[in-house]
């Protein structure tokens, strides 16, 4: 037995090597190369952190000069702040919408059909999703404006993606619809693992539904919440396709709905400034790494 274990250990590198070679070639090397070129100018000269300085001081990335104007000024608040707004608005909305729907649909007959319908947003290609959003928020034909008209809120009727103060929010709110299916499915799976006895005991003890939720349901869904938060955060940080399709590669009116990944694309494939784009990519990687490490550490601790 011991000999077999030693033999298997000796062969481990052999078993890992096919996947390892692919990862090194197609993941590790490009990542390292991207980080490497971010320290050089387009002429190949070593410039240290100059690209990072240029990126972080450019109005496209951070534009806090006249915050009072908000998104209505050229460049809006900058792509980095827009990404943060994505996280601040989109994350709680999509997470709690999914949780609420999962709880509501838990004991409903035929809930799987409703869940599937909601999950369709998740399986829709985000490019298509972006086009649907653009259509949804259009003044004359969009369902959102039709809804406002029915409610008598004509002052809100406009092409949301054409106005700087609403373009970013239109894409974020629309994405909540597309992304809620993810948290719904994760939370539904989590709810199925909570024993019924806990609820019966709480009922016998006279706990209110509110108390039951905060003392039983939500704490026991903590691992699911962590997964939802992590995956949503990563998605929001690297958000690109849906914005590109909904407001165009310019990032919307006055670049008011620009995001980091879209700016990276413009610098890489419009300006062919791969070094500055690499700096943005490295910043994005660092941000996503922080989130990923946080999650991995939590899971290891568990």
């Amino acid at each position, binding site marked *: 037995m011991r000999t077999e274990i030693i033999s298997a250990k000796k062969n481990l590198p052999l078993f890992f090597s096919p996947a390892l070679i692919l990862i090194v070639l197609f993941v590790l090397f490009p990542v390292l190369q991207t980080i490497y070129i971010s320290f050089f100018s387009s002429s190949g000269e070593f410039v240290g952190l100059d690209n990072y300085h240029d990126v972080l001081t450019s109005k496209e990335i951070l534009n806090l000069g006249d915050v009072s104007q908000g998104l209505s000024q050229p460049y809006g608040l900058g792509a980095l702040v827009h990404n943060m707004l994505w996280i601040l608005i989109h994350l709680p909305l999509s997470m709690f919408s999914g949780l609420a729907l999962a709880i509501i649909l838990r004991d409903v007959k035929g809930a799987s059909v409703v869940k599937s319908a909601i999950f369709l947003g998740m399986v829709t290609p985000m490019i298509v999703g972006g086009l649907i959003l653009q259509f949804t928020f259009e003044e004359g034909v969009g369902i959102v404006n039709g809804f406002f008209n029915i409610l008598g809120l004509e002052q809100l009727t406009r092409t949301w993606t054409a*106005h700087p103060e609403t373009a970013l929010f239109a894409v974020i709110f629309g994405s909540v619809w597309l992304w809620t299916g993810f948290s719904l499915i994760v939370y539904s799976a989590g709810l199925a693992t909570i024993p019924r006895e806990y609820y019966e005991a709480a009922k016998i003890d006279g706990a209110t539904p509110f108390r039951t939720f905060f003392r039983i349901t939500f704490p026991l869904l903590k691992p699911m919440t962590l997964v939802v938060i992590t995956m949503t955060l990563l998605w929001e940080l690297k958000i690109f396709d849906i914005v590109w399709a909904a407001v165009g590669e310019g990032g919307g009116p006055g670049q008011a709905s620009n995001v980091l990944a879209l700016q990276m694309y413009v610098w890489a494939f419009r300006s062919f400034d791969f070094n500055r784009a690499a700096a943005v990519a490295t910043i994005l990687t660092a941000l996503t790494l922080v989130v990923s490490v946080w999650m991995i550490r939590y899971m290891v601790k568990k």
Partner: protein
Amino acid sequence: MKMPTTMENVITVLVLIAIVTSAGSLWYGLTVADDVGTLTDSVATLVDQMGDLATSVASVATSVADLATATTADLAAIADDITAISDRVKEVEKEIGPTLTVIGPWSGAEMDAFLPVLAAFENKTGTKVSYRIYRAEDLAPILPAQFAAGQAPGDVIFMWNWFIQEKGEEGHILEVTGLIDEADFRPGVLDLVKVDNKLYGGAYTGKGKPGFWYRKSFFTANGLTVPTTWAEFLTLVDDIAAIPGIVNPILSGDGVGWPLSDITEHFIATYGGPQLHRDLTNGTVAWNSTQVETLFTDRIVPLLDGDFSDPKTWDTYIENWWNGSEYGLYFMGSWITGMVDDPTDLGVFSLPEAPGAEGVVFSADYFFVPAYTEHPKEALELFEFLASEEGQSHQVAEGGHIATNINVPLDAYPPGVDTDMAIAMTGKETLLDLDDTIGGEFQTTFWSQLQLLWVQPAQLDAVLDAIEAKAP
């Protein structure tokens, strides 16, 4: 009775033991003899089986040897066949020529209008051509990587002029200096694909952006007339606004922002003059200069307070303009003729009271032959054809296009708007599309900042500063 002695007892026991031992030995001997017999039989069977196995192994070995011989023969035959097929392909290629791949941005009706041009080339030269659709925006991320690998997805590719200049300079594009006579083209149109007097691309047909389109029947029904002065233009806009049901007198297209840049360029070319248009393109006049700011303040901004609509993306709005239910005027390029069901009812007018020489913004489609084409001779033949009077005559006959080759006769155009456009452009100064010419990050910034200006005219100064920050 005498009792046996101890000795007699011992002898008796020994005799009994001897008898029992002898009987046991005899029985055991008989049993072993059976086993030995069985064992002998088994060994004999085994020997027989080993003999059979040896025979089988020998048979298999023979079969394998036969198979190897046959396989070698088959492989040799297959290799011969492949060589023969390859030779035949080469012979066929020599006979009919290779199949060239052309990559262009046109799909749908526009592609249908382009394919007859390629068919004409096939008929003329016998070289087959296949067409693949890729917009310039989609090619931009692909081509640099392909070029770096020494490959190209097509033999003739339509792309932005500034991209052709950049990649031509880097050696990824075949130089075509002297292949076509530059005197055959509209003045300046080939400058956009030249670097240091080396030509890297060709100018195909293009589209003019002459001004505001209207439906003649709509004007007639509402008693409207084409304006000849700026004051009349403003009156016309007010008159259209007063028509019941009209939401905005002028429909603003959006796309990703380029229709707004076309409108802006028309204002610049008309009220700033062709020289200002050229200066802004070359970067010799600043966008936030007093001259440009005044032009925007006096001419464009006043119309952004409800005369122009918000930027609209979807084609459904063109329907609403065409049927006169919501909009009266629409600024668009000459390809509008292919977007309405009755082009003979289309009318167009430029902004009135142009100071100095008149200029019309013209946007040509540019193409090139990559250095990595496998068929350079045939690709260059196609290049020449697309730039020639013959090739462009085929294209303009399909409608919606204006030739860059000045030898294309007016009767090559379909009667109606296309001919009118060609006549209108004759003798006028051709201005090259400003943002297409500059390209790069400027273009996306220009588009998105104009989108902002259209809905927030009060941001004019900040918008001009933002555009200037990316200008050449």
